[in-house]
């Protein structure tokens, strides 16, 4: 049964990108274990506002695990200690009475802090703009069933397409590498006939952008897939490596 718990929060506070940040400690009483983690932060913010203090800035949008806006590094895990869920889907029943919960922003040079727990993930948009799409001519919509796709590939592409672009993979990686994200975005298209036409160009362009933005070199630690809320597999990284190396060898 869910009950009400008392918790101590250690939250990273930082005024701006250049400002020096530090942890602030807050005590929260009678938090319902049925509430989500973000609802708990809403309660904290109301408490802070009523005390005349600045509320904690954090990202969120859909609050149902599909938009990829929420972030937070909770007790050493991106998206918290639960597996395969986003922070917005994390519930307070994962924490016990008296728990001390440390909340940090994603920490990676590619994702500079904007304020408190909010980071700038615009880098991911730039990588997508570099090639994460299929160019189409306008005209009649082709019949979906007219293009045969093996079930296996359809499933693999779907698994890769589950990526919501949250950036937890970068946050989890000791090398600040964005390979899981990039490989998911390359794979979801490379596996389908519609995406294959531009596959080589896409892989090269997206990797080049990723490198240019200063993300690290993947050393296959697998921390990304362990923390990814959508369970995107590093087999996608192997596929990206393969696509990329073959494309470069052909040049």
């Amino acid at each position, binding site marked *: 049964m869910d009950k009400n718990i008392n918790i101590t929060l250690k939250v990273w506070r930082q005024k701006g990108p250049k400002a020096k940040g530090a942890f602030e400690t807050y005590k929260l009483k009678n938090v319902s274990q049925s509430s989500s983690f973000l609802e708990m932060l809403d309660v904290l913010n109301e408490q802070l506002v009523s005390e005349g203090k600045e509320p904690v800035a954090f990202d969120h949008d859909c609050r149902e695990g599909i938009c990829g806006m929420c972030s937070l590094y909770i007790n050493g895990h991106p998206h918290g200690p639960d597996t395969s869920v986003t922070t917005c889907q994390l519930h307070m029943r994962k924490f016990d009475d008296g728990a001390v919960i440390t909340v940090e922003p994603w920490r990676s040079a590619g994702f500079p802090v904007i304020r408190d727990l909010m980071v700038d993930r615009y880098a991911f948009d730039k990588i997508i703009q570099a090639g994460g799409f299929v160019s189409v001519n306008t005209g009649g919509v082709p019949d979906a069933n007219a293009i045969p796709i093996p079930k296996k590939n359809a499933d693999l592409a779907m698994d890769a397409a589950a990526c919501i672009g949250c950036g937890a993979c970068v946050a989890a990686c000791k090398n600040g590498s964005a390979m899981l994200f990039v490989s998911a975005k390359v794979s979801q298209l490379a596996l389908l006939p519609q995406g294959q036409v531009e596959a080589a160009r896409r892989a090269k362009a997206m990797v080049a952008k*990723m490198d240019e933005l*200063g993300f690290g*070199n993947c*050393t*296959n630690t*697998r921390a990304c897939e362990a923390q990814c809320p959508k369970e995107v*597999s590093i087999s996608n990284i192997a596929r*990206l*490596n393969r696509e990329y190396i073959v494309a470069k060898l052909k040049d």
Partner: protein
Amino acid sequence: MWLIKSSIGRKLVMSITGLFLIMFLLFHASMNVAAVFSEEAYNMICEFLGANWYAVAATGVLAAGFIIHIIYACWLTLQNRKARGGDRYAVNVRPKSVEWASQNMFVIGLVVIGFLALHFLQFWYHMMFAELAEKVGINVSLPDGIASTHDGYAFIEYYFAQPLVVALYLIWYAAIWFHLTHGFWSAMQTIGINSGLWMKRWITASNIFATLIMLCFAFVTIFFYLKSIM
């Protein structure tokens, strides 16, 4: 040049040089095991690997492999630290599926280099180097009781009779074992010869392979230590 400029290219260099070094380890391990069975066979190999042009050339290629691997290791590690950023997490948890070795390849590599230096001083310096030096009239003095730079067997007996040396070598093997358990499958992943099912196979192969190869080295070391005290 994409092998320098792109992250995947740099990783590819890491994996190819790594696999090359693994091939060398495989050769070295089999050569050592030969010593257990036959002194003549081992010394024949040692003579073959002395100051002959082909052995010196092969040593050069091997050294180049090492140097490229190490330079790229430093380079990648520095870039990755920078990509990680200045602020570090206050709380760090390593997920179960993440091997310790995978996050500490550089540190393990440094340990490997440290012992490599010792190994070079003990063996290579007294063998191939001494023989080369002799040709230009420089005399390298050999350890007590060893008459020839080709008598590899005597070197093994001499060094592995010392418990401290044996202990150091075993630590060295452990470090290489860690490096290989991650390195082998990681290289396959980097090259892109991997997928869902193969992931498990490569990781298992990595563990078995690293264990077998390091057991060979350890077996020879311990064998000669036991031989010395019997």
